[in-house]
């Protein structure tokens, strides 16, 4: 069993943005959710945790890697049936497999521990499914929201080398101005895309932002009203067409997307 030592402080800081420089640990209540599917999921919460003793992860080559911190996703449901197959959490194509019961006496709460920050992107769809059994597929109607990450205090995070999450958020300041925040690791780039008619118009240049990741851009003028705006993460070297219809190219990710109300178009 993984042992967790969650750092709790009384300091609660209202965050303006997930990706603004965070200053301390926080308490965020578990997200009450409405789920679509048979598992009747009632809530989830996501935390950065310290692991004491460190988790010893054996590699395929037989060497061991010690993990002193991790992310823990706790999911609560009416019950998780005890089966040969495991309940798995899918965040788009990423799958969390390793789980533990929250305690010995209950089958209504499971916790997944993982280490890969790449999984935690906004807009990803959150699904619970017993491996391969579509009858159990239970989907949360809202995309995953890393804003609900319960972070460790900054000094602990610095000591442990816990990375900031990549991601971004968009806000409309008015019909013709958009702002937001963005945190990216090189060599990825970000661009804004504007939904006009049946296609997306993609900014010709990468999105510029200040030292804390904030940006503010005017809406370009197009030959029709803008219906929606998307903040995109593009892999390095991606070819960027001026206009795109159909699916996003492989490797592109939508970090955030906002619709433009009809009155503002």
């Amino acid at each position, binding site marked *: 069993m993984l042992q967790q030592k969650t750092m709790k402080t009384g300091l609660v800081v209202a965050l303006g943005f997930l990706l603004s420089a965070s200053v301390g640990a926080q308490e965020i209540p578990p997200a009450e959710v409405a789920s679509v599917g048979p598992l009747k999921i009632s809530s989830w919460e996501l935390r950065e945790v310290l692991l004491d003793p460190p988790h010893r992860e054996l590699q395929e080559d037989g060497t061991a890697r010690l993990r002193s911190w991790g992310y823990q996703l706790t999911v609560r449901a009416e019950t998780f049936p*005890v089966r040969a197959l495991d309940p798995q959490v899918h965040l788009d194509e990423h799958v969390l497999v390793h789980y533990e019961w929250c305690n010995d*006496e209950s089958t209504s709460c499971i916790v997944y521990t993982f280490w890969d920050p790449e999984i935690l992107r906004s807009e990803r769809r959150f699904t619970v499914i017993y491996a391969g059994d579509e009858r159990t597929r239970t989907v949360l109607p809202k995309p995953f929201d890393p804003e609900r990450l319960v972070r460790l205090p900054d000094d602990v995070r610095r000591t442990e080398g816990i990375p900031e999450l990549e991601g971004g958020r968009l806000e409309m300041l008015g019909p013709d101005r958009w702002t937001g925040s963005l945190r990216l690791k090189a060599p990825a780039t970000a661009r804004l895309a504007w939904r006009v008619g049946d296609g997306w118009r993609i900014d010709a240049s990468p999105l510029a932002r200040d030292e804390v990741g904030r940006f503010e851009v005017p809406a370009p003028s197009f030959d029709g009203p803008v219906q929606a705006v998307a903040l995109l993460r593009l892999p390095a070297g991606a070819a960027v067409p001026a206009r795109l219809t159909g699916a996003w190219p492989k490797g592109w990710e939508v970090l955030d997307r906002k619709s433009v109300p009809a009155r503002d178009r």
Partner: protein
Amino acid sequence: MLASLSRSVLTALILALLGSSGRAAENPRLELLDDRLEPVSALTAGDSLVVTVDGLEAARGYELTLLDGNGTIHGFVRAATDAKGRLGPELIWYHSGITGTDPAGDGVPGPGFRDREEAERHLLATSWELELRRVATRAGVSASGQLVAGWDLPVRRAESPRFSVTDFQGRLRSSFEVGREAVYLEADGIAPGMPLEVWIVADRSSWKSGDLLENVTDVRRTFSATTGRIGPIWSAGQQRVGRYDVVVRPAPARRLENRLRDVDIVLYGLDAGLVIRPALTSLASAQRHVALSGRVLSEYPFFEHRSIFLRGGVIAAAVDPSDLRQSGSPDATVFRWAAIHVVEDKNPIEWLADPTLNDVTEVVEIRPVKFGTLEVNSGPVWSNPEPAPAGPNGYDVVIDLGARPLGGPPQFDGQYTAGIDILDGAIVAGLRVLDDPSQPGPFPVGRARYDFPDAADLAYGAFADRNVDIRAVVAYPGETAGEDVPMSPGKERFPLVVILHGNHAICNVGSGCSSNCAPSNRIPNHEGYDYLLDLWASHGFIAVSADGFDVTCKNNRYLERGAVILEHLKRWDKWNQPFFIDGTFNGRFRARVEMRNIALIGHSRGGEGAVAAQIINQNVDLGWDIRCVVAIAPTDQNTSNPPGGGPRSFVLGDTPFFNMMGSSDGDVTNMQGARLFDRAAPGGQKADKSQVFIYGANHNSWNTIWIDPSWNFGGDDGVGIDRISDEKQQLAAKVYITAWLKAWCMGEQDLLAIHQNRLHVPELDGVRSYWSYEATDHLDVDDFQNGPADPSTNSLGGVVTVAPPPEDFLESSFRPGAYDGSFYHDTLGLILGWRQATFYETEVPVAQQDVSAFSHLALRVAIIHDVDKNPVLGAGRLEVNLEDGAGRRQSVELGSEAFDPIPYPYPHPGTSWKTMLSSVRVPLRSFRQDGSDLDLTQIRKIVIRLPKTGLFAIDDIQFTR
């Protein structure tokens, strides 16, 4: 059906009035069949006479005699009825007695009618009668028993046009010495100038519209016909030895059409139309030792020779002319009287010492047989084999060849005469009769249990579980039946089998997963296999079902499950040791356990645990002698490094492995066991492996506790169509697993015939079990594993060609999610989709062309759901053809009743379609039998003929045993 004569009515009445000393009442009903086994109302002059009689006493001997108005016997047969009281079909009279004047072209006149006209005149000029008599004695060959019934036999003229095979002189002939003279065709009653096309094809007894016609002469022959001689149809220089049928097609199309049409005429039906025999040599003194026993098939090749049978299953015999040719063939064109005996097995010395034939069956069958065609000399010889006990040494089958005095019944000497009579079983027994392995064995069942709470700290696995309970229930061969009775007396040791259950609630209160659950509330998951434990104990196993309480209701823990099994083995090793002070059983099992003969079994996660136990055992060299492993609906989810190294996804090496899964599994819906099977026995670590995929079987019903409502944690199991009952599912487990255990732990490898889909327990009729079986000894022609993917070359380096180019032709992964998402394997294979008749040819390089040491051609096949390419949602068929170095070819049809079925995917509500490869194992004898002359020492290519449209998955094309 014919109306009985008044005499037969009277006979039946008298019999009914007299009563028959407790026998079931007989109500005989005769049916006449033509020589294509279609019902007819009268015998057509020139046709063979075939009959069935229903309404008779079961498993009893009867005689049928054909007499003319003068009381002369023309036809005779003696045989036993089957379990339903049915006699036949029995062939009583060949070709209405027409033999021609010189049927073999050797100057020996035929004993029968000269031609059809003569036969017709004689048949229509007299009356004919069939008599049915009850055989008075079981083994006697000349006694006439009590009359049961008699029938008039109506006769009618043959319809026009009629065709005959003749020699240059126009003499009716069906046998020619190869290369000596041309074969001619004559016609009677034909419209002048009618265009005809003539095909000479490999002999078979039954044809239906659409059957493939392969012209062995390689020349298309068309004629403009007149009555009388039509022309030569096979010149002397082009003839090949073999048995053939002649097909005449009136008004052929300009374009070649190689399928049998409704209007085509096949000469002689059941019998061979034409025999091309080797130059006559003096083989008469050779020993005639050939395979005889087997089962009759309703489709080509019409007979499967085999030597293993289940108690109560019908045993038939047939002489394959391909075999007999090598050991001195009697003349193939003239019928001989044969008395067919099944006797206790004798070795050659015993046969010399005592050649007497002491038949053990219901009756000594007597039939007129011709050895030119396999089908016309085949028939049941033991309708209801009930040896008690099943003969350990088996039985031999002997055909005693006799003579018939003019107009009288046939006569036999009742002895095996080497060089004349035909023997199956000269060196090893010709056949063996096995007991259904699901029936209890000879030992009374003792029961015991042990319980050591918090007794073990698990030595293997990532979770380092401590204070693990070691608890089990045990069934063992007892002196008597009962709890804690002494072991069966004697010094015999018994093999040990340990089974482990899977993941499930462990507590009947609260969440179901409390490891602090009070003993009284615990769910006894391990007691759900009592029905298996008792059976195995009765067969001589010490059978242990372990409680995995402390590794259940927790995630992962596959190595830990293996570690639990190994903890049990340690304890059994101690109880077996001579000087161990045994406070648990007080020495009951001391020196009575075969600790070098162990089988491991697991269900669900326990199945993966059983595999893990053997992986650990081998990796860290624990020294347990695990003879086989069985996984029931197992998982394949381990993500921890096994101790001693090796992949996390277990690869079971040189241990025989059996995986059993149900298509309606509502838990392991992604059939993870298929991956364990595919990875098992890799190159260099060969072992036999078997897999059965049972349509309609679920996950939980293998364990009676898991389906017991009182334990209330059944879950959402058992989904999809065509569900089978819990009882059938558990019976399948009893049959299949017990056969595997006895094969590998008790040396009863004959039982592997169940896993090779050659033996069927009647109680499982209707249960669709799709098998995959791979024997250690095989030659991979193409396993499709070689990278990079290249469908144009097989694993032997031979060229693969497909023509015309198919729509889908790719080597693909069959792993979950690959291709159309319907696969659950861990292998690569071939996807083949086509929309017109297509040939897939894979060449065998010269160095590997001698496949005569193998017994089967095997491949794994599955249909892929596709409403366009596979519009019929049912079993599929493919034709497979072997071609030898001389260009000789022979085809069989995969998916027919003669071979294993090719499964259509199962529609599972949780995962959509399930495409599961299934083995089709074709005996190489099927390509050789009935005189095909195919040379198995130089097989040049395997050709798969693909019909109009289809989408199939193919893997593991191999020659095997």
